[in-house]
């Protein structure tokens, strides 16, 4: 959820703010957090009450905003964390921090670490797949967030695009028929075998295998991504966008097919959550596009018996301020970047389902209990996948690197 969805309009219910609506945030509260330069010329910082109604759902009694009715419907599968905090205050470094453990680009992303640490269970598909919602506007995405950093390039995230060429260079060049290509591949193999006889170089055998895999990928990738065989009730589950390439719903459905085929890590990006203004309408639009498909993914994985060993995570790169950015009108108000607290949810493998973890203060401005730093979150994520975050290291330029750098504690409270 790139751009940072407002926790105050989604999962962190702050009814006290109604009493403070339009009143200045106490300076004793405001000064506890760094604010972005985008509100530096504001002379007044009135608090804004949640723009939407909240209700309690499920056995956990979790408070969820009316914008997310489908997510509310699967709340007993979720562990909602309301006490995340980060160090970054702008999008690109913050996304990089969540994805790679460092605000500066150049480190491997989570998926690259998992590909490196756990390997692939399906050699005919990339271990780390990236699916982006198209035409969303908002902050641009940086492919560095799914890069392999200093790890070898087989660990980089492979963007699976909409349309006829889902993986770059996957299709035979124009005018080359499948028969022709097969003949060419046979010739390549025979030549490589000759060269192997001459040079006795183990690298050549590996190359021969990679060419065969490339050929199989030409079939397996389109097959994995082909939604034609999905029945209508599945499309209905994921919602109205599910038949339109490039939507979040379409990508959630693709993600399920990739998960079924043992792709190790699937990253979906949906931009457009950066509501500095017009939050009221913007949040409704964004929720409409993402709520039903995200919940459908949980339901669909569960009905296939996949949820127990698949970890699903929903979240952005930071939170949004409880005070107003811009003019305080219902349609016009916005909320600025806020690293001090934000919400995510996790579901599936090893997660304590039906819980809410951590809390913020009455203003929704600071973590009040059980704070989860981004590195703690990453340590927990790796733990859930069977990895000790302090042991998964890669030596580069003279030191050992980890996803969690030199930080991170596993958050025991979210484990089943």
């Amino acid at each position, binding site marked *: 959820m790139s751009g940072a969805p407002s926790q105050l309009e989604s999962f962190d219910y702050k009814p006290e703010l109604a009493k403070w609506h339009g009143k200045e945030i106490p300076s004793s509260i405001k000064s506890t957090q760094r604010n972005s330069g985008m509100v530096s010329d504001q002379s007044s910082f009135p608090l804004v009450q949640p723009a939407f109604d909240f209700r309690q759902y499920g056995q956990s009694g979790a408070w969820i905003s009316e914008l997310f009715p489908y997510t509310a419907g699967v709340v007993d599968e979720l562990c909602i964390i309301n006490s995340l905090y980060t160090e970054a205050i702008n999008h690109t470094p913050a996304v990089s921090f969540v994805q790679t453990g460092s605000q500066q*680009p150049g480190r491997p992303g989570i998926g690259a670490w998992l590909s490196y640490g756990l390997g692939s269970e399906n050699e005919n598909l990339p271990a780390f797949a990236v699916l982006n919602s198209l035409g969303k506007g908002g902050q641009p995405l940086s492919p*560095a967030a799914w890069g392999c950093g200093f790890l070898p390039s*087989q660990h980089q995230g492979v963007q699976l*695009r909409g349309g006829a060429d889902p*993986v770059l260079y996957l299709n035979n060049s124009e005018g080359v028929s499948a028969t022709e290509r097969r003949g060419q591949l046979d010739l*390549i193999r025979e*030549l490589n075998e000759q060269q192997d006889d001459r040079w006795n170089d183990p*690298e050549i055998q590996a190359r021969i295998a990679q060419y065969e895999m490339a050929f199989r990928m030409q079939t397996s990738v389109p097959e994995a991504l082909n939604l034609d065989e999905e029945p209508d009730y599945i499309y209905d589950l994921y919602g109205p966008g599910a038949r339109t390439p490039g939507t979040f719903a379409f990508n959630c459905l693709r993600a399920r097919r990739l998960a079924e085929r043992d792709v190790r890590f699937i990253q979906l990006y949906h931009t457009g959550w950066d509501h500095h203004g017009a939050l009221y309408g913007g949040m409704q639009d964004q929720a409409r596009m993402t709520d039903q498909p995200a919940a459908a993914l949980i339901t669909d994985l569960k009905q296939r018996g996949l949820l127990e060993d698949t970890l699903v995570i929903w979240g952005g790169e930071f939170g949004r301020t409880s005070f107003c950015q811009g003019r305080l009108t219902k349609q016009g108000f916005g909320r600025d970047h806020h690293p001090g607290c934000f919400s995510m949810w996790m579901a599936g493998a090893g997660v304590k389902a039906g819980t809410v973890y951590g809390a913020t203060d009455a203003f929704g401005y600071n973590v009040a209990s059980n704070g989860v730093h981004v590195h703690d979150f990453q340590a927990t994520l790796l733990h859930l996948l069977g990895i000790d975050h302090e042991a998964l290291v890669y*030596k580069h330029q003279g030191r050992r690197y980890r996803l969690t750098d030199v930080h991170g504690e596993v958050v025991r409270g979210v484990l089943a």
Partner: protein
Amino acid sequence: MYDAPTTPVEPGVPEAVYPWRDAWPRNRLGLAPLGDGTGSSAHHPRFRQPRLGTALRSGLVETTEDFGSQGSLPSHPALLDWLAQWFVQSGWDVKALHRLILTSETYRQQSAAAAALRERDPNNELLARGPSFRLSAEMIRDNALAASGLLDRRVGGPSVYPYQPAGLWDELSDKDWRYQYPELTPENRYRRSLYTYRKRSAIHPAQLIFDAPDNSVCSVRRPRSNTPLQALVLLNDPQYSEAAAALATALSDGRRTPTEQLRAGFLRLTGQSPTEAELALLLDYYSTSGNLAGTLHAVMNTSDFYTLR
């Protein structure tokens, strides 16, 4: 925090490691006097090392990027010292150093090796055989362009925009002020890969697939991976089919027999003549398909094309 600085910090060297003279600039220039032939030679191998790394797959110290306590020990410390002294005495002549290394018997050895030797020394640390490694992203493309006669050898000038799958940058942002990949123009199509534009957040995908770093941070040593996506680039990037077609056209001058065409094409692409067995395979494919470009394109997908032997 970056917006609340406290104590000013400057570059320096711990006193216990090397006492710094005030007159020396506090940067790499300050380190240079150490290489004047009077001091320890421990510092210049650092400069020389990547050179040797380029030529021999890895340097005499495997961790080219790290000469410190966390790095590997040199495999041939005496040779390293000798080369360092030689380099200083040559007047820091980089070209002469390259010549010395590339004309050495060690470098000119065959890279073929018996299984027993490979088993004893899989990484060739002892240099008992010639170096052998997959070329870098830039070298592979340049090699295809050079072999086919397409390579534009002009030096200098602004970066250029060769083939890149359409729409790639547009998927990252739909803002109207986004930076768009300019249309391919004939005059920048075949420049050396060194000149390919490097957008830091989205470097050319074919380069990335062959382990080019993303330029966000300094990178001294690249991994050399071996992946199916690399096969797909060599098979389907139009750069390579175009180079194969250009080479086929150049060899179809009406004066060469098919055997001569294939011999010459193979030599251009791999730097060596095909064996009889290879030639037979090539001839068979060529005579059946009638497609010289397709045959040469297949050669570009074999290890002798993208591997230094």
